[in-house]
């Protein structure tokens, strides 16, 4: 069923939100920043997950969430103190819950042993709160093997009151068995005040079998004395049915506390059939309290609506009460709304009724595309008007200026739709830090700043991996062990700070630690040993620090299970460059290191350098450009066949003739007549691109060439310029790769001029 699949997806989306809320709440509790709302929100998060999981029969998840919820309830009621130990257990439980959600969504197996241990710990906390002895740890078999052992609801889980499937016991009663009941039912006014109606209850009774209903109207007063909201009728029902007493009782379950009710099984063969029912004494007591129903009874068996009169009588009362409620309802709503807003300022989001809509991403992208076109057409239109002789001071020109401003604003606003706070990535970090700290035996405090900084959704999605890796690196390599920190005169607990901010149209994320900083001597030795730099290379501190980004460099002497995983900082650097970003490191010995990565706010537009190549215009992504220069004849060396090298200070770089590369020209362009643009590919390889001239620098809207035409080697995408012409965006990586078959940065580009 399609709808169910969709709801299932919603459920997992919501789980992710609830888990984030849960973790944020627990962290606030840990830092003593919590109020009762926080505890409630934490409880609700687990409760919601349990509720949804129940609907999908995710038994393991329900089971764990239930135990967790029970413990949180103790905290909520104040019986369980939120001590550091308690919160730590809860944080670990939150992690386990997240794992169970992942398993439920993607399949696989959860760490049953850990979960069973956590369940024991959580139960221990409940017992502690209740002042009981903690239960003995259930040895191994508890929830550890739920899959093989049938439902998880057994095994000491007596307190689990969550039953996913209702059991119908009617078969057990024997079909056709004629059960007879005498039911005395006297609704109280309270019952009507809750929108229950006697006639509906009676209707349900009829549905059970053959019923004879007698209504005692003797208590109905004279019209002048009647209370329109009163209740004066008593119904006596004789029912013969195949259903059990339980079923009969179910009909009355909504009304039994707002009426005088007795249900008595009439003798069929056996008299005291159900006298062992604990409720019987209660019912007997009530029968005694029920007024005698024999005198003055009208027979109303059948489908008359016996209490029609009082109900009708209540009508005028309804009409007379105009609408006092709206004001009453409005009054408390104002502070509630204000509070929700205050919460939004402080911790953000929060309130369940935040004003958001969900829109299909495709629609947003279509809108962004269209606005891109709009910007282009607006520029084109004004350019043509000026070319046709429009005076700059004319009213029309002023109108063009305003139009330009407006279209830019529209473009910014539309781009902002795709923007999301980095919070969604940042909130995964505490768990990561906990795990890495545990494994590495270090004490770490994580500080995040600027989590509301917004950036394009695509950038956010692709930010998580490099960020994760850099934080692992900061803890594993950056921070010292507690004992080393103490002897260095620092606190045992290391600090990792992750801060996001906007800076000149880009997002900048800094990951800093207060560890030992980069051991430059060791880094340099390793680089020399691995042949990454010549032994006599004279590098600045900054250059040494940035050696860690070189492919094949790893400072870990043995492969650690954390930072290892087969990737080094070079991979991090490449994935950031793939997003049009840059990363660098600064380090102070003994004080710590700071990684800084800067990324574009969106992948839909690109900062480009517009250059002329032959009679064509080409865009070179600005992020790839290191510098530009005009080569002198003495700096250009021919090198076997057509290949040329250009000398840039101490290095020789391949000189790529872009016009020839793209097939615009068969002639080799004169190196001295053009401009050489030094670019660096994602893998760090550098080349110099020879173009005719630089036109300028501007932001361009990226148009996919593959979607509109087809893939062209050496070209990444296209864009439309202000004058309406199409310009191709150069694929720097591809162009650099063709010029350097070896492709390895240090094997060629760091070659000394002397060689």
């Amino acid at each position, binding site marked *: 069923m399609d709808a169910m699949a969709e709801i299932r997806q919603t459920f997992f989306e919501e789980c992710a939100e609830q888990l984030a809320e849960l973790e944020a709440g627990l962290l606030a509790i840990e830092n003593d920043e919590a109020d009762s709302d926080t505890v409630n929100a934490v409880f609700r998060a687990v409760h919601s997950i349990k509720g949804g999981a129940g609907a999908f029969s995710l038994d393991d998840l329900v089971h764990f969430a239930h135990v967790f919820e029970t413990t949180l309830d103790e905290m909520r009621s104040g019986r369980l103190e939120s001590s550091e130990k308690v919160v730590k257990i809860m944080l670990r439980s939150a992690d386990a819950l997240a794992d169970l959600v992942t398993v439920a969504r993607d399949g696989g197996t959860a760490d049953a042993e850990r979960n069973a241990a956590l369940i024991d710990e959580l139960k221990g906390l409940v017992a502690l709160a209740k002042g009981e002895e903690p239960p003995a740890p259930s040895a191994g078999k508890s929830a550890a093997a739920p899959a093989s052992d049938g439902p998880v609801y057994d095994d000491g889980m007596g307190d689990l009151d969550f039953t996913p499937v209702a059991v119908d016991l009617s078969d057990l009663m024997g079909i056709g068995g004629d059960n007879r009941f005498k039911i005395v039912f006297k609704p109280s006014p309270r019952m009507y005040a809750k929108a229950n109606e006697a006639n509906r209850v009676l209707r349900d009774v009829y549905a059970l079998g053959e019923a004879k209903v007698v209504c005692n109207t003797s208590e109905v007063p004279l019209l002048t004395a009647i209370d329109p909201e009163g209740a004066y009728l008593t119904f006596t029902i004789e029912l013969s049915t195949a259903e059990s007493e339980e079923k009969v009782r179910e009909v009355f379950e909504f009304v039994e506390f707002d009426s005088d009710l007795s249900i008595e099984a009439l003798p069929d063969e056996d008299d005291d059939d159900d006298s062992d029912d604990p409720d019987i004494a209660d019912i007997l007591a009530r029968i005694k309290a029920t007024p005698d129903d024999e005198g003055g009874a009208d027979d109303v068996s059948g489908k008359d609506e016996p209490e029609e009169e009082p109900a009708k009588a209540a009508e005028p009362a309804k009409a007379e*009460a105009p609408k006092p409620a709206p004001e*009453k309802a409005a009054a408390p709503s104002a502070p509630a709304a204000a509070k929700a807003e205050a919460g939004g300022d402080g911790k953000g989001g929060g309130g*369940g009724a935040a004003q958001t809509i969900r829109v299909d991403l495709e629609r947003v992208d279509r809108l962004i595309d269209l606005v891109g076109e709009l910007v282009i057409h607006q520029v084109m239109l004004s350019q043509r008007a000026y070319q046709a002789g429009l005076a700059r001071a004319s009213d029309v020109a002023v109108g063009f200026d305003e139009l330009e401003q407006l279209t830019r604003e529209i473009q910014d606003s539309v781009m902002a739709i795709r923007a999301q706070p980095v919070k969604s990535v940042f909130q995964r970090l505490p768990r990561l830090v906990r795990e890495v700290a545990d494994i590495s035996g270090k004490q770490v405090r994580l500080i995040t700043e600027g989590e509301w900084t917004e950036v394009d959704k695509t950038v956010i999605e692709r930010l998580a991996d490099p960020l994760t890796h850099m934080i692992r690196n900061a803890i594993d390599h950056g921070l010292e062990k507690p004992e080393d920190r103490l002897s260095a005169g620092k606190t045992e607990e290391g600090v990792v700070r992750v801060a996001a901010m906007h800076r000149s149209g880009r997002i900048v994320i800094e990951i800093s630690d207060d560890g030992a900083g980069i051991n430059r001597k060791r880094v340099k030795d390793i680089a020399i040993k691995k042949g990454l730099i010549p032994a006599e290379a004279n590098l600045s501190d900054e250059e040494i620090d940035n050696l860690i980004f070189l492919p094949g460099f790893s400072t870990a002497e043995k492969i650690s299970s954390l930072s290892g995983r087969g990737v080094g900082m070079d991979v991090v650097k490449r994935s950031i460059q793939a997003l049009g970003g840059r990363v660098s490191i600064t380090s102070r010995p003994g004080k710590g290191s700071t990684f800084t990565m800067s990324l574009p706010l969106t992948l839909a537009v690109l900062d480009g350098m517009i250059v002329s190549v032959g009679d064509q215009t080409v865009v070179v992504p600005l992020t790839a450009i290191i510098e530009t220069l005009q080569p002198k004849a003495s700096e250009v060396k021919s090198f076997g066949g057509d290949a040329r090298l250009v000398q840039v200070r101490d290095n020789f770089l391949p000189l790529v003739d872009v016009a020839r590369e793209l097939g615009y020209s068969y002639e080799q362009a004169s190196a001295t007549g053009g401009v050489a643009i030094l670019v660096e590919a994602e893998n760090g390889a550098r080349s110099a691109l020879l173009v005719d001239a630089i036109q300028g620098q501007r932001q361009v809207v990226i148009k996919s060439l593959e979607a509109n035409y087809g893939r062209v080697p050496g070209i990444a995408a296209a864009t439309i310029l202000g004058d309406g012409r199409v310009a191709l965006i150069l694929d720097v990586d591809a162009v650099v790769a063709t010029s350097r078959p070896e492709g390895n940065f240090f094997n060629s580009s760091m070659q000394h001029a002397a060689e």
Partner: protein
Amino acid sequence: MKRTILTIDDSRTMREMLKVTLASSGFTVVQAEDGQHGIEVLQGMDIEPDVIITDINMPRKDGFQFIEEVRSNPSRRAIPILVLTTESDQEKKQRARLAGATGWIVKPFDPTKLVDAINRVAA
């Protein structure tokens, strides 16, 4: 005429579940995300709902507070209100009843039982 149900639940999953179940049984569904929102939605409705189904545990205004507020308006005493609760939580059923709930629906609900419960209380 199609009957209208107002459902109030802070869980999107539950809201969608209720909506799909109820819509496929021919009800019109109006949704709210918590008690406070429920009150606001109710004020804004041209015709009052035939039945209200509300969760208990919700931010801003919980199910109990919501029911009390609805019932404090005499003209809204005739709207049946069902609360969503877990099977054995007698205390919650009791509190909901005292607040003015008409009945309850056990979570996770079985679609036929849900519709049965509505038919039991709806006129």
